[in-house]
């Protein structure tokens, strides 16, 4: 990608990050005060994004979808435009909880197509990786809590539906309490996982240069984050609870476990350096 085009794209990603912040606040604090500001920044980000694509197209004299990074950028831009249209036409604010983080992460990934210099200091490299690992582990712990609470919800729901109270009915907490725990742990887990993905992308970008995106373990990570995003979206917008939500949570936990196994060498890298 041309240098100016990447700069415009970075500005766009910075503006999209306000959208991510809005989603985080909505999940963790259940507040939507930032929505108008985030939507405004999102719109402005789309303008810079457009400039970046046009700049890249003019300089390369072709439609800028020749490699993974350009395609990601184009895809993120189209999603952003479509979302702005939906907001203008239907005012579906809850959809933003899903779209804002998605567009931000896609734009961020697209900015990482141009190689930068190697690590200037191995301490910074290791600290960066440590932050990523800690964030992932905390996120995973929150996800485990979400999955366990979802299963308990399922058992208690079954007891209440069967109308013949057995041991579970008396021992398990109320559905409302479990629902609250699921919402909070899922929100916190998603925020931690998103920050971990951002930390990991930038680390991998510097470590592996432009080849980072073609690594299969990184693809698995993004896929897992995507399933988590879908879970959060279905929960916050469609109010998924009970059986469907429990299955989805356990699925996300399963993908997270696979991702963990795929990245088990990271700890060894840290110890080796």
């Amino acid at each position: 990608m041309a240098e100016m085009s990447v700069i415009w794209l970075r500005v766009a990603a910075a503006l999209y990050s306000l959208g991510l912040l809005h989603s985080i606040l909505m999940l963790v604090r259940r507040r939507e005060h930032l929505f108008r500001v985030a939507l405004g920044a999102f719109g402005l980000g789309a303008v810079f994004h457009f400039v970046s694509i046009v700049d890249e197209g003019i300089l390369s004299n072709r439609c800028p979808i020749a490699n993974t990074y350009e395609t990601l950028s184009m895809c993120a831009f189209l999603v952003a435009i479509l979302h702005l249209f939906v907001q203008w036409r239907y005012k579906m604010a809850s959809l933003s909880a899903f779209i804002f983080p998605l567009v931000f992460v896609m734009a961020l990934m697209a900015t990482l197509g141009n190689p930068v210099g190697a690590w200037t200091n191995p301490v910074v490299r290791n600290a960066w990786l440590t932050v990523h690992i800690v964030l992932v582990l905390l996120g995973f712990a929150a996800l485990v809590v979400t999955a366990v609470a979802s299963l308990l919800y399922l058992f208690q729901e079954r007891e209440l539906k069967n109308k013949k109270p057995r041991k579970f009915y008396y021992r398990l907490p109320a559905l409302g309490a479990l629902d609250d725990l699921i919402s909070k742990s899922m929100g916190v887990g998603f925020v931690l996982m998103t920050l971990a993905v951002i930390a990991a992308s930038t680390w991998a970008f510097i470590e592996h240069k432009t080849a980072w995106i073609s690594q299969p373990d990184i693809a698995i990570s993004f896929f897992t984050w995507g399933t988590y995003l879908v879970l959060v979206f279905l929960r916050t917008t469609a109010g998924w609870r009970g059986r469907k939500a429990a299955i989805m949570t356990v699925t996300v936990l399963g993908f997270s476990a696979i991702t963990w196994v795929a990245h088990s060498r990271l700890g060894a890298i840290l110890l080796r350096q």
Partner: protein
Amino acid sequence: MKLFLTGVSHKTAPVEVRECLAFPEESLPKALKDLQACPGVTEAVILSTCNRVEITITTEDGVDPQATIDTFLTDHKAISPDTLVAHVYRHEGREAIHHLFRVAASLDSMVVGEPQILGQLKVAYTAAKETGAVCGWMDSLLTRAFNVAKRVRSETGIGQMAVSVSYAAVELARKIFGSLNGRTIMIVGAGKMSELAARHLRRSGATHVFVTNRTYDRAIEMAKLFQGTPVEYSRFVSMLPEVDILIASSGATEYILRKEDMHRVIAARRNKPAFLIDIAVPRNIDPGVNDLDNVFLYDIDDLQEVVNANLRERMKEADRAEELVSEEVERMMARLKVVEVTPTIVGLQEQLEGIRAAEVDKVKRKYGPFTQQQEEALEAATRAIINKVAHGPISELRVQAGKPEGVHSIALIKRVFHLQD
């Protein structure tokens, strides 16, 4: 001293007998004074509730407590001695303590675990305390009974499960929503049970009540009872997305809420749970509604099933409570035994102190006069000696008092120190 308890309860006497023996709260002070005036009675408590009348007394050793209470009852109540004998139960000593603890812990109640009995026992205790009928040993026994009751309630689940249909509805609502604060209720139709359930829910934190009825005036009237909002019958389904708990008890002969209606309602609620209580016969709500996710429908039989399950669960907890009560009775008995050896301990201390004082006098006469400092040193040294000598036998007396075979050891200690009975 003897402890004696006698009385009738729902288990031993029909209501005709119980009502004959009942003591209204205002008559308790006089009855207690009369009872305490009986020869040999030192303390007395009268517990009178709709399910039981019990008299507990302590008497001096030479008195027949059974005859004393029988005379008191036949003098004060219009009941023949034969009827009394046929229905009363009597417990003495350890058995009386065990019974008192079981009553306080609500293990002997008609509905096991009900909380009222503890309050009623406290009323009886207060009346006895105010008239001076409880002033010594029985005071500590009753205080212990209250503690046992508290322990049973906190360490077992005996009082946690609802045993009435209307409370079962509230308990289910709590199991679904957690807290009921801010929840919205809708009552469809009129009926005592729906009114009672709504009242319990309101008291548990539900903030708003909608009331609907085919007769709008009746809805307005009932809404006033809950400071709620009347809703026209034709509009109630469209209001349901705002409602968390629906209580249906209308006289409609067909379903007033069908599965497809509720499907739309739950979609509009974005899958937030809804609790539907159908206490109408014939039923008001299509049973298929319960198949929908996040909808919990309970009809009158379902609620009764929950009550039955709760009662079974309470009985399981009651077994644990019985163990706790037995443990507490043992502790109480051990304390009583210690009280029994207290005169022996005091006697031993007095005897040793007498020996000490006599020996100190001898020393003063023979080697005195001493300075004040010397006298104080002499006193301190001799006291330290007798305290050390007494420590062993006193500890042993306390330990042996709690053991069934301890009588022999106590007698031996008495013989060794030449103590009188």
